[in-house]
């Protein structure tokens, strides 16, 4: 118990109404014509983990906020239907009622720390302080939570010094410490690297096993694979509620036009039982069956786009020679890196957070200058070139679109780049037009970017750089926070861009994205390049130990191909071709 309950309160909280119960709920934000949610029903019992999937703006975050009691108490909206959490109406306006009962975790770890505490232990006490829990009762509860979430070793560390995955676990712990019976997570892994994502995915089950009802909104299929049932939303409506193997399959998620995750597609092809769709051992076992191998391969859709640039500017070469870079404070982020990228290549730089990939990318357009070594773009040393001059040749799209967007319409935002380069008139207008088309933003050209979801804002930031048609395009984590169609779109843009002879360099965590759209993968660890080759090479079974040493895993298709002894199959297409070939 978090606070003394009165008799009526205790009576009202019957055991059979614990957890989340949403009955035909609808939510409409003020001044919006369309409801964010319409007639959605969902129950999550204690001990159960439910997932919510769907494209951006499908209503997933709205559902999460509703289940945590934030609507209409914190976020103004009109609500229809019934929403109860732990037997208490979630749409009540009394802050005290749900405090300590329903908790919610968001995607940016740093924003969830109280930011005023010296240690993780004190951070975990924050919620307890707010609830007025007596000081003597705090330590036992904090100890229990540290043990439950396996972060005892972090108890005396400073929260801001932790990695993203560790911070996110602390954020979850600080909610759980309050004794919540219901835990809601809104895209908890969107900002995390693969290791961080694994850390969070693994604790979902444990949290439910402790007697909580857990609701997790996510894009990442590996996280959704850990849930018992998954709700799929499309345009605010529920289109399916089933185990993830079915909900994320062609019949439900696929039917809404979203791409089906590779593992689910392969599981369907192999006829694996829906409950085991995410079990790689089972999928591999079924794929060995000669009848499965002989059956026709399913379609793996790959979007393609047509794009003709206005300016004739072929790709340029990039040469990084012996670059060492130290951040203020002495951290050596790059230790003697050599990298040559020929014109027209598509290169993906991969590695854990802290491996130096972003630091390296920032050297390519002069945002950072090496302490030792040289960086040459188009055979010219860029040491003397100011960043805005280098931007004519190397276009950099940052991970956080909110660092760049400031205009009142998408169209003006996209026109910003060309204007800086001194381009005006019909040429500039044409550049904007083509960039909007390429990024599928024509329908929202007059909308204020801040009225759009994060996925779309990222596309706006991308379009604003595409409009400059730089010979080299550098993308920093283009797929984080993106929904399925967004990832497909960006992949198609990369293909189209590189198809004109321009160079594309991307920093990414998404191994499947890297394997499908990039001809070269550069693996980094602790400031050095440890591997450099084609996807076929890097994701081959022989290299799996090296990849594991950097904290990365090859994509699903490669893992299954290795299990089945089919050699290197970095993409789903390659795996399916190899299966047919071996039949």
């Amino acid at each position, binding site marked *: 118990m978090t606070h003394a309950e009165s008799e009526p309160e205790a009576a009202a909280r019957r055991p059979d109404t614990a957890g989340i119960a949403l009955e035909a709920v609808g939510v409409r934000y003020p001044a919006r014509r369309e409801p964010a949610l319409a007639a959605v029903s969902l129950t999550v019992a204690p001990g159960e983990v439910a997932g919510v999937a769907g494209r951006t703006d499908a209503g997933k975050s709205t559902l999460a906020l509703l289940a945590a009691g934030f609507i209409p108490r*914190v976020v103004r909206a009109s609500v229809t239907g019934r929403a109860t959490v732990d037997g208490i109406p979630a749409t009540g306006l009394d802050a005290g009622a749900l405090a300590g009962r329903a908790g919610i975790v968001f995607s940016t770890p740093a924003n969830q*720390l109280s930011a005023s505490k010296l240690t993780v232990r004190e951070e975990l006490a924050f919620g307890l302080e707010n609830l007025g829990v007596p000081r003597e009762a705090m330590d036992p509860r904090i100890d229990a939570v540290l043990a439950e979430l396996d972060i005892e070793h972090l108890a005396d560390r400073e929260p*801001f010094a932790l990695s993203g995955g560790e911070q996110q676990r602390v954020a979850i712990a600080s909610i759980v410490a309050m004794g919540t019976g219901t835990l809601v997570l809104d895209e908890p892994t969107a900002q995390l690297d693969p290791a961080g994502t694994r850390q969070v995915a693994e604790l979902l089950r444990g949290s439910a096993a402790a007697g909580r009802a857990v609701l997790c909104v996510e894009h990442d299929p590996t996280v959704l694979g850990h849930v018992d049932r998954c709700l799929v939303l499309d345009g605010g409506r529920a289109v399916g509620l089933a185990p993830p193997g079915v909900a994320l399959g062609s019949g439900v998620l696929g039917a809404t036009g979203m791409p089906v995750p590779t593992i689910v597609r392969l599981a369907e092809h192999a006829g694996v039982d829906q409950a085991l769709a995410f079990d790689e051992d089972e999928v591999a076992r079924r794929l060995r069956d000669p009848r499965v191998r002989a059956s026709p391969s399913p379609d793996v859709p790959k979007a393609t786009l047509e794009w003709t640039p206005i300016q004739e500017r072929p790709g340029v070469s990039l040469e990084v020679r012996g670059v060492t870079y130290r951040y203020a404070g002495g951290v050596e982020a790059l230790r003697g890196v050599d990298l040559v990228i020929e014109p027209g290549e598509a290169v993906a730089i991969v590695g854990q957070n802290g491996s130096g990939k972003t630091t390296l990318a920032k050297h390519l357009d002069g945002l950072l200058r090496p302490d030792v070594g040289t960086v040459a773009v188009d055979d010219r040393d860029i040491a003397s070139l100011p960043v805005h001059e280098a931007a004519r040749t190397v276009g950099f799209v940052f991970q956080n679109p909110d660092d760049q967007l400031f205009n009142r319409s998408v169209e003006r935002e996209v026109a910003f*780049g060309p204007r800086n380069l001194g381009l005006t008139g019909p040429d500039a207008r044409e550049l904007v037009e083509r960039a909007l088309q390429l990024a599928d933003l024509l329908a929202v050209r007059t909308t204020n970017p801040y009225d759009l979801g994060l996925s779309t804002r990222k596309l706006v930031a991308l379009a604003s750089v595409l409009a400059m048609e730089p010979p080299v395009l550098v993308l920093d984590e283009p797929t984080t926070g993106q929904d399925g169609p967004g990832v497909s779109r960006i992949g198609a843009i990369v293909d189209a861009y590189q198809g004109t002879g321009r160079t594309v360099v991307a920093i990414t965590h998404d191994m499947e994205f890297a394997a499908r759209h990039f001809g070269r993968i550069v693996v980094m660890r602790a400031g050095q390049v440890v591997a450099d080759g084609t996807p076929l090479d890097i994701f081959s079974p022989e290299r799996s130990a090296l990849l594991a040493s950097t904290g990365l895993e090859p994509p699903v298709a490669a893992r299954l191909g290795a299990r089945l002894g089919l050699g290197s199959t970095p993409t789903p297409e390659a795996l399916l071709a190899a299966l047919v070939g071996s039949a």
Partner: protein
Amino acid sequence: MVSPATGYYRPGDSWLHRRDPLTKLLAVGWVLLAAFLLPPLSLAALAALVLVAAATTGLVRPLLRALRIPALLIASILIVNALFYPGAQDVIARFGPMALSREGLAFGVVSAGRILVAFSASILFLFTTLADDVLESLVARGASHRIAFVILSAIQMVPRLQDRASAILEAQQARGLAVTGSLATRVRALVPLVGPILLGSLIDVRERTFALEARAFGASPRRTAYRVVVDPPIDRWLRLGILVAMVATVVVGVGGWLA
């Protein structure tokens, strides 16, 4: 040096660390009053006091490093006053329109000295006091917790804004925005920088507000505290003494002024 969570705070167990936050706040208040109200000669004594405080708490080196922040301001106050003192009589040397005068030099030294002493006392306070603890002790004496948290968030905004500002500067340059060059160029560059800072801060604030709500901030009227802020018995006397000193300072300072 500056952490987003704890600002300039340096963990330690010196006599300064162990004082109640309110005591230290009052002490800084007194130093500021004394620096600006008392006759200039007292500046030397105040500076010595601050230096002794730093030395006895092992914070001399960090203090000297921190003085880089107002260094430019202090230097310019000194130079501008020394060379451009209006109505200067006792001129030592002339360089075109500039005249190095004794009055100017004296005034410059005193003004710069006041800023130096005020800054040093304040930074020593920040080195030895957690913002959180200041607010807890104020709340324990009846201040509203919500207001206290708003103040705390405002203090934390500064390092966050600094980080964001440099991220935004980089991002806009990468889109071809020229930020170096003529004054006109630099002024024009402000618009694409200010927008994302403000809007990004709003989004930030929204997320942080949600996080606070999720941690039941404001849910209970009676808040408890995990971290115990100790008020040593001697501090009550110290505070009384400082208050008396403050009154005396005002009397002497204003009196001397009027005389």
